[in-house]
């Protein structure tokens, strides 16, 4: 997948993100803030026996952050909590070295297009950090 294609996929996520929506009191919530831009995200999660049953997020954030949240959503519902860390490590591997895309979960791969922009990495990580925090509550 070249850069253009990746950007198109991220844009599609941005335009109709999975999981964007209201977080009611059934969710436990985690928050993320990006110090560079003040972007904020709230991620809500519902769990049953360590399995993620739903994720919702609300954000004042850029397209990368929204797209990453949407991908996270698609990847993790119905997965075990432990998978958050597994995929998050894949994401970080990808940001560090876009060549690792080949061994990465397909849904994550478009995010390789920002690996050359360390200042944007936090945008992609923000929702993941918020989700981890939410799961601790």
């Amino acid at each position, binding site marked *: 997948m070249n850069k253009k294609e990746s950007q198109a996929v991220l*844009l599609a996520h*941005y335009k109709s993100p999975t999981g964007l929506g209201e977080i009611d009191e059934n969710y436990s919530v985690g928050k993320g803030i990006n*110090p*560079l*831009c*003040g*972007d*904020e995200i709230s991620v809500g999660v519902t769990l049953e026996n360590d399995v993620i049953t739903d994720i919702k997020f609300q954000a*004042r*954030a*850029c*397209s*990368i952050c929204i797209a990453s949240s949407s991908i996270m959503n698609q990847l993790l519902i119905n997965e075990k909590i432990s998978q958050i860390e597994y995929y998050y490590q894949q994401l970080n591997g990808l940001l560090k070295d876009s060549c690792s895309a080949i061994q990465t979960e397909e849904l994550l791969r478009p995010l390789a297009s920002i690996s050359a922009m360390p200042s*944007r990495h936090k*945008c992609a990580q923000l929702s993941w950090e918020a989700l981890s925090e939410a799961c601790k509550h």
Partner: protein
Amino acid sequence: MNSLAAKKSISTYDVYQHAIEQFSHYDNERYHYLDSAATSQKPDCVIDAVTQGYRHFCAPVHRASYPLGEAASSAYETARARVAQFINAPTSQLIFTKSCTEAINQVTLGWAKSIIKPQQKIWLTRMEHNANYLPWHQLCQTTGAELKIIEMDEDGCLLLEQEEIWHESTFLIALTHCSNVLGGENPIQELCDKARAQGIYTLIDAAQSVSHLPLDVDKLACDFLAFSAHKMYGPEGIGALYIDVKRMAEMSPLLMGGGIVESVDEQHIVLREAPYCFEAGSPNLSGALGFAAAADFLQGLPAAAVSQYVGELGRQFRQALAQQGNVTLMPIAGGGEHSSVLSFTVDGVHPHDVAQVAADNGVAIRTGNHCSHLLLNHLKVGALNRLSLGVYNRREDIEPLIKSIKLATEIFT
């Protein structure tokens, strides 16, 4: 100063034409650098001065009596004199720091902290950079003094008429001359005059203005004025603090170390005279030489021409932005029309995404909070786009920016 050039009318003097030759490493065909408020590109003369320092003046400053050491010391003091002269300050009242940030912290920790009394007030403006906010915030938390904010109106003008500001409980007003987000110019002369009449101390953060607005501390009669070299076409890692002579006597060093003491025994330390006692550690000679070269560079252009040039170019950028239906412009500090710094948002497109599209098209603008949390919290935005201009920018930089904004709008809305 080139006296022939100086005699020509300022408006016809082409700052860009004269300056651009000096920036032989800045490729303005391929690249539109609109982030000079963060740090400026460097003219060849500044790079040369730094290099000459490393080639021909590698010796300790103020510590050696062999010829190279004497040469280093006198080059350093000549540079101090040059930078002091640039803001019309007596040489002995200018100290070198590593940055504007350190200069302000020197005032906070080396002076205000031991003098201010609980309940006294420090007034800052809504548009301060964190460098002129966080030190005072911390000072107030540790001393029981009170931090107060001078608000501004919708046109970017400070609300200076409130009586409370001028109350005898006010210890200090610390404000930026030119905002790093809203550009423009705050009325520092009037403010300093009024403050002095009331016995209120003043600190001017000139980080943004020093590159283009004339500064004259003798006329201003402020107590402190701080700036960095790297934002005025000079090198990194060096800044300066002007200190009023009376405040200097009340000040103690921020850092303790070599070069600041006259005599020491296990009980008593006798400090050297100012400015030496405020510059602990080996002086940054090459930095000072580059700093002086930057002052030469700027004063090689006729007085006021730079501010007129970048201000007028900023006005043209602003006009072009205003013509876009979906661009919201932030006001200009002080309410004027001319500003070399402009902030804006594009409706429906996150500033990060605007900046990204611009970057993809060779236009370097900024996104983020610009270290101005006080202002952005107030505006209730997390991020803004910002463009800022240097003498190497020109009208031809406008179109690529506008195109980028249009493209970002297409893509993201």
